[in-house]
């Protein structure tokens, strides 16, 4: 393809600048000595050091990670089972479209509606048991509920692309159901499962709305913490925390990109 027209090029660079200017601002002020205001008072890493001695932030980070790990594990298992169940059996057209709708509901429903519906559901379930008090348990359930569909859709598209030739060959050689699943299906669909799990993990780390609606006082996550702090007024410490979160995101995105490109190569 020929080189872009200078006007297109400058528009594109301007748009990239627009995307990054705010994040760049946060990074710059995370190393600014001034505690208040936006005047530049010199370079410092104090705010980062303060983060690591702030026990509340550390426990918040731990909550975020625990929530993401637990919900991703459960959602990956459930989503993968659903994907196999949909893709590998001769369902009627009607059943198939029903299942398809089921999977797309959580994807297209605005998260704020799902959050509201779950708040009400947990509120009513509290009559039965107090495990449904706002807190980690509710948050895990909420996250799994929207992750399942994403995992299932990713794994299903992988199952579609691998087809069923190898499975049929295994059957012709008298492999049992269990053997086919363990030695044929699982190895072949593993990249899809990993991709689905990674998507679910990032969705959980990134989520604000569902956590905001279902969290209790002891189950704050980093996005909730940043939100609450920002409402009180931004501090350099929050800039430092945000910059770290952005850097971790960059590492995750680049890592995922590398992995998917390596897969394409082999």
């Amino acid at each position: 393809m020929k080189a872009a027209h200078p006007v297109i090029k400058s528009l594109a660079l301007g748009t990239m600048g627009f995307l990054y200017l705010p994040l760049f601002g946060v990074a710059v002020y995370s190393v600014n000595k001034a505690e208040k205001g936006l005047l530049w008072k010199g370079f410092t890493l104090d705010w980062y050091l303060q983060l690591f001695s702030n026990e509340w932030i550390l426990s918040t980070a731990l909550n975020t990670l625990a929530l993401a790990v637990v919900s991703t594990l459960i959602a990956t298992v459930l989503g993968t089972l659903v994907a196999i169940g949909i893709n590998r059996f001769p369902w009627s057209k009607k059943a198939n479209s029903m299942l398809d709708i089921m999977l797309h509901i959580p994807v297209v429903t605005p998260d704020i509606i799902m959050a509201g519906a779950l708040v009400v559901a947990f509120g009513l379930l509290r009559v039965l048991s107090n495990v449904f008090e706002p807190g980690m348990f509710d948050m895990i359930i909420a996250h799994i509920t929207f992750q399942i569909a994403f995992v299932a859709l990713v794994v299903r598209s992988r199952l579609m692309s691998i087809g069923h030739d190898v499975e049929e060959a295994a059957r012709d050689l008298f492999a049992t159901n269990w053997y086919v699943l363990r030695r044929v299906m699982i190895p072949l669909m593993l990249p899809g499962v990993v991709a689905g799990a990674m998507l679910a993990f990032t969705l959980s780390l990134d989520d604000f709305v569902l956590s905001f609606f279902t969290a209790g006082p002891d189950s704050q996550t980093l996005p909730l913490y940043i939100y609450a702090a920002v409402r009180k007024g931004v501090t350099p410490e929050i800039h430092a925390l945000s910059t770290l979160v952005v850097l971790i995101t960059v590492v995750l995105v680049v890592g995922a990109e590398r992995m998917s490109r390596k897969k394409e190569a082999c």
Partner: protein
Amino acid sequence: MPNRLFIWRGELTTRGSLTKRGLSFLSSGMLWLALFLIVPTLVFMALSFADRGEYGEIIWKFTVENYQRLMGYSVFGWTPDYLYILWRSVVVAGLTTLISVLLSYPLSFFIASRPPRSRYLWLTLVIVPFWTNMVIRAYAWFLILAPELPFAKVAAFLGLVPSGSALYPSPIAVYLGMVSMFLPFVTLPLYSSVERLDWSLVEAAQDLYSSRTRVFFKAILPQTLPGLSVGVVLTFVPAMGTFIVPDLLGGAKYMLVGNLIQQQFGASRDWPFGAAVSMALMILTMISLQLYRRRGEEIELL
């Protein structure tokens, strides 16, 4: 006939046993979705027709009062406040989508014109904000729009805002936040169409002396339509229900439907009304998905 033997993907089996095995794969996940998605959604729908007690408790008595209130009717007469919030949400989502599309075309053409190696770098640069936490990206605008920085100073100089005050909360701040939030949602699918563009058609149009606009509308737009329409849906639908951007950058004066819903579950503690507003948002979402589907394309979200 459930018991007749037949061959399914190399396996000699009966329909009955396949169904049983298929259901055992589906049951756990589907049960989960039924329990925590379908039933709560149905209860939520029912709740929008229920009443609210003095302390925010739910009174299960059928009433359409929540919807009347949403339409603006109350004991004090008619006000368009809530309807205006719904309308504003649609407008903000629409304009956000439009601006994102206008910015995404040059951006994706630019990326596609790069040599393959740096193309990945540019794409990664678009993907990173896509995955960066929304709270961080929304509040980051606080800094850019702060009174000490040139943007606010220029605006104050032009007499748009009183000097020494920040450019947020304001409608402009909401648009800046929204576009920066949703731009990658358009750029990424659009780029995948632009990458596959058949340039011979564009050249043919140019050889035949088409004007630039005609080249765009006749040779480029039809070819990029699949990516564009995915991008439009991916932006418009979540933009309508977004909460964090108008909350941080719009303030109480520029509420969108997401804030109105959140308010009912937070400060106001009026769940039935919150459910009714959610139903309105759900209907808006359905209408936009339906309009998209009518264009004859399958929703390919992943």
